[in-house]
């Protein structure tokens, strides 16, 4: 297949699959979804490989060149995010059906709708990562938001529906701000293509207002403090596989778009102190999110608040605008994506196996679910930024950048954030590791099937491997580094 066609198929194929899955008989959906996942994931990994070998790939749809035509563009950053999505999707395809079957007893047909919605979400994510212009990104953003809300609503209970509704309202509000910003930008320059905008944008009131609106809209979608309040409820009340998708992937998509807009369009003409604001909010998110995570009594809420904290790290790049921090930030997005997906799936397993999600009632749970708690520990290694995980590599790069720049508050925040992460993860492990043997459980008896336990373990291992092989994503990134940061 021509590399340029890969880009098109990466968007088209999941959409087609989503449509097919909506009409397919419910009995077929799992197999069909798994097959489709395999196909889409191979395409994404193939594309990442191509970008690694030959550099960025661009394609103008129907040979209409920008500014009129639509351009899809795959650089190092897109390749990594596509690969991340694929790597989360593969274990998920094994885990989700098993989870929904176990969960089904209490719930209605949530499992049947998971597959089409997830494929829809996947298409939207791919579109966002590949979009070469702001308007296509808007379409991706909207599709992703709608699919995410529908996925949360699969939870079915009152709390899930309320969270979904709140999520819907805010996502819609965010994308309206974004749309207005894009329109203003278009009014100022007459183009929407990212590269063209970066080349010709002037610093004037219109572009200032546009940047402001776009940033606010995307901050709401990425749930940076103080716009984080919708996230814990939405992520904690969704079905476990959905939580993994939302926390691992969906919030990263709007972040990547923000990263592109700031550093590919606006950074060349200077951003003044605005980056400091985002950096400071990032620090605040790390602290507040971690403190809230420590106070939680339900395991899924703890994990969701941890996402609020970990998202804070991503925004430090806006204040530390240098190459090292950029690489660190992207690496953090990747490792958090893998580790958080693993953690949410593991948390879902714990809830399934024990029938509750109260942290203080976990006594001895590690003895019943050794593999699942091993996964929690492994994912925790990455979240705490311990070597050799991807989280460590990311924080190492960010710390180096902060020290080089002499930005001490950021040094303290990055290291302090790791300590705080330990502060909410270790009590969890301690509760699970305490306690005595339950005589009712026979030796070697499995509470969960392999299909439930191994996919999250694989994800956590990948998060660890990401650090051990940190040079691979970094060499991919060096090809897609924004010109202004080099």
């Amino acid at each position, binding site marked *: 297949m021509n590399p340029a066609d890969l880009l098109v198929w990466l968007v088209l194929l999941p959409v087609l699959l989503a449509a097919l899955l909506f009409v397919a008989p419910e009995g077929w959906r799992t197999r069909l979804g798994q097959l489709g996942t395999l196909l889409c994931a191979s395409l994404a990994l193939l594309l990442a490989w191509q970008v690694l070998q030959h550099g960025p790939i661009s394609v103008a749809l129907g040979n209409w060149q920008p500014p009129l035509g639509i351009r899809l563009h795959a650089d190092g950053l897109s390749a990594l995010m596509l690969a991340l999505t694929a790597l989360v999707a593969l274990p998920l395809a094994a885990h989700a059906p098993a989870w929904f079957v176990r969960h089904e007893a209490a719930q209605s047909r949530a499992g049947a709708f998971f597959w089409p919605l997830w494929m829809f979400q996947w298409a939207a994510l791919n579109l966002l990562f590949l979009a070469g212009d702001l308007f296509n990104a808007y379409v991706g953003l*909207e599709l992703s938001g709608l699919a995410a809300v529908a996925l949360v609503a699969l939870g079915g209970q009152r709390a899930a*529906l*309320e969270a979904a509704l709140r999520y819907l309202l805010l996502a819609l509000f965010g994308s309206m701000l974004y749309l207005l910003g894009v329109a203003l930008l*278009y009014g100022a320059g007459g183009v*929407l293509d990212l590269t063209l905008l970066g080349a010709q944008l002037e610093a004037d009131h219109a572009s200032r207002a546009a940047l402001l609106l776009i940033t606010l809209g995307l901050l709401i979608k990425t749930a940076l403090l103080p716009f984080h309040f919708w996230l814990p409820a939405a992520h904690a009340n969704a079905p476990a596989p959905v939580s993994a998708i939302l926390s691992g992937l969906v919030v990263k998509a709007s972040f990547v778009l923000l990263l592109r807009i700031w550093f590919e369009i606006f950074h060349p003409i200077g951003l003044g102190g605005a980056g400091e604001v985002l950096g400071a909010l990032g620090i605040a998110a790390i602290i507040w999110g971690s403190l809230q995570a420590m106070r939680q009594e339900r395991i899924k809420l703890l994990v969701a608040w941890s996402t609020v904290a970990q998202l804070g790290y991503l925004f430090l790049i806006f204040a530390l605008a240098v190459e090292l921090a950029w690489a660190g930030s992207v690496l953090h997005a990747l490792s958090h994506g893998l580790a958080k997906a693993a953690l949410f799936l593991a948390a879902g397993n714990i809830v399934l196996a024990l029938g509750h999600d109260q942290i203080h009632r976990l006594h001895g749970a590690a003895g019943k679910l050794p593999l699942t708690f091993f996964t929690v520990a492994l994912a925790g290694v990455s979240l705490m930024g311990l070597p050799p995980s991807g989280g460590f590599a990311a924080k190492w790069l960010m710390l180096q950048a902060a020290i080089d720049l002499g930005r001490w508050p950021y040094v303290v925040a990055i290291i302090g954030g790791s300590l705080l992460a330990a502060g909410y993860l270790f009590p969890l492990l301690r509760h699970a590791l305490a306690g005595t043997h339950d005589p009712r459980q026979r030796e070697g008896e499995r509470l969960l099937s392999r299909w439930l336990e191994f996919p999250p373990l694989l994800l956590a291992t990948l998060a660890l491997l990401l650090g051990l092989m940190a040079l691979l994503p970094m060499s991919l990134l060096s090809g897609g580094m924004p010109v202004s940061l080099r």
Partner: protein
Amino acid sequence: MNMALWFTLVGAALAAIALHAFFSRRHPLRRLIALNIMGSGIFLVLIGLARLYPGTLPDPVPHAMVLTGIVVAVSATAFGLVLLRRLARLGRGET
């Protein structure tokens, strides 16, 4: 004052009113309506922007954006209404 500027100003005013409503109201239905009004305001601004300079032909790109935006707003509103109805039923105990 030309027509385009008038549209833009009216749109901005509508969006501002709706913004206030979105944050000051508690009931999700009211907030959904506020969002729709805000959407209309923003679309008006976009249409105004398309023809800000009198004498030139209107630019089709903002029109395309408005169209897409309307489609999204309609589907999201429909979805929001379904969720609301579901919630209302749950509230009455008819799960």
